[in-house]
């Protein structure tokens, strides 16, 4: 366990060192993140020209969901994109072989070796917006915040589980074009609370692609509407997806016959 923490620290150090070489890129990325955040805030403002609540969500409540969407999407760009999304090129070029030869857990190396530091800005900005908006909605307390921390962690776990599951499939299908976009599109649906969608879509968003777990449900916690049952359900689904992903990863490795060189 200790060994993995030391490795994580080394991975993080490398990522920060690389990032400091591209400082202009970092600032450009931050400005663009702020632009899209303003875009999101203004675009939902158009809805509230006509009404005070949309499907039971006021403007500041909806802003909580938008903030969490930024946070989760930032996590995808920071952690999933530079790692698991590279699976298809690992398989195609045969570099997966080198990763498998390393004397550590292969799932760990493939999942966490790199980090897009500039995308962490999105995570921070998103969390800040969500918490501040919840403050304005007037529902933030210590218990709510604790529940929220647990649920957003479960959201991140669910994101990881789904990504691992999908990207493990590339061992069989080789090309991953589309998988990353599918994932991105699925997350994009989480920009709005799941109650904005048709009942069938809403169910799919909880159980099939657990996007509701990443934005809507943690937002409910910040708004003081989460129950213990919800907490247990979210935890169960998130862990189930990660277990399924890990299982698929191991199955995939068994049938991996190496390629390239």
């Amino acid at each position, binding site marked *: 366990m200790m060994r993995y923490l030391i490795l994580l620290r080394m991975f993080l150090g490398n990522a920060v060192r690389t990032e400091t070489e591209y400082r202009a890129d970092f600032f*450009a990325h931050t400005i*663009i993140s702020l*632009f*899209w955040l303003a*875009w999101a805030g*203004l*675009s*939902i403002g*158009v*809805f509230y*020209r*006509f*009404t005070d*609540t*949309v*499907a039971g969500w006021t403007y500041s409540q909806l802003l909580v969901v938008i903030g969490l969407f930024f946070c989760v999407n930032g996590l995808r760009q920071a952690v999933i994109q530079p790692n698991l999304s590279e699976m298809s090129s690992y398989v195609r070029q045969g570099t997966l072989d080198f990763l498998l030869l390393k004397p550590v857990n292969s799932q760990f190396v493939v999942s966490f070796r790199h980090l897009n530091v500039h995308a962490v800005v999105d995570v921070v900005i998103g969390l800040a917006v969500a918490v501040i908006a919840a403050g304005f909605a007037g529902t933030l307390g210590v218990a709510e915040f604790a529940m929220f921390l647990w649920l957003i962690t479960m959201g991140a776990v669910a994101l990881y589980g789904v990504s691992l599951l999908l990207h493990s499939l590339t061992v069989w299908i080789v*090309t991953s*074009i*589309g998988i990353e*976009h*599918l994932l991105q*599109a699925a997350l*994009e*649906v989480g*920009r*709005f609370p799941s*109650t*904005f*969608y*048709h009942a069938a*879509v809403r169910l799919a968003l909880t159980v099939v692609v657990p996007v509701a777990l990443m934005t809507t449900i943690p937002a409910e916690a910040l708004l003081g509407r989460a129950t213990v049952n919800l907490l247990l359900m979210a935890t169960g689904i998130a862990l189930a997806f990660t277990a399924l992903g890990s299982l698929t990863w191991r199955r995939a490795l068994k049938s991996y016959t190496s390629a390239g060189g």
Partner: protein
Amino acid sequence: MRSVTLYRGLLRASFAGALVYRGQLVIFLVGALFPLIMMSAWLSLIGDAGLVSGWSKADTVSYYIGVAVVNHFTYSLLVEHWEDEVRTGSLNVQLMRPVHPIHRHVAEHIAERAVPGAVLVPVAILFSWLIPAVDYTNSAGLWALTVLAVVLGSVLGFLIGAVFTALSFWTTRVGHIDMLVWGMGTFVSGWIAPIALFPPAIRDVATLLPFHAMLGFPVELAMGKLDGSQIMTGFGVALSWIAVCGLLYALLWRIGAPKYEALGG
């Protein structure tokens, strides 16, 4: 005659490319789902608050199915392709060829729109047939005008991209600028909301900008929402912007191309 042969060759290569990379088809079709997210928000709003500016749920569904289709045809990946070529240095090779590189991009744009479009249009027709509330015009004349508007929108989308590529002789960050402009454009194009839902002042400005000509205008035409003078204005705006962007591109290219210093290798 030479240009006919040229385009026949370029188009054949582009279509072959678009058909081979079928994985990309998924990307294009997933992109068509994004407008439906906006649609869901408006549907729940109308469900709660009733008609907004006279728009019903059926109108909203018809509108956003149209937006998904039109957006695919008028969107252009030119700036993305161009940035890749500048960064990797493959533009240097393109510039040495006796043919202006824009012709190859025109052929690519046509193939990239046509191949996924051949899947998207039947799907959209199927949806409008399955959902009885979806209602477009029955007039063949309006449909002909809609097709024309989509073609003009596609030309305009490509030309706006072309202006940004010409700017790349001065800055390598055109991708970011293009994205910011596109992002701001979504407010007045009809992406976030049909522009009929905005206050009259914003609506007037929006009808004169190129973004609406590329998205909301063709859809509103197909829905039979526009009167004669609005149709005239729409086409006038589209054609004017095509002329402006075309001229601007030619001018920038002439000044900028000699400045180009090759990157990559």
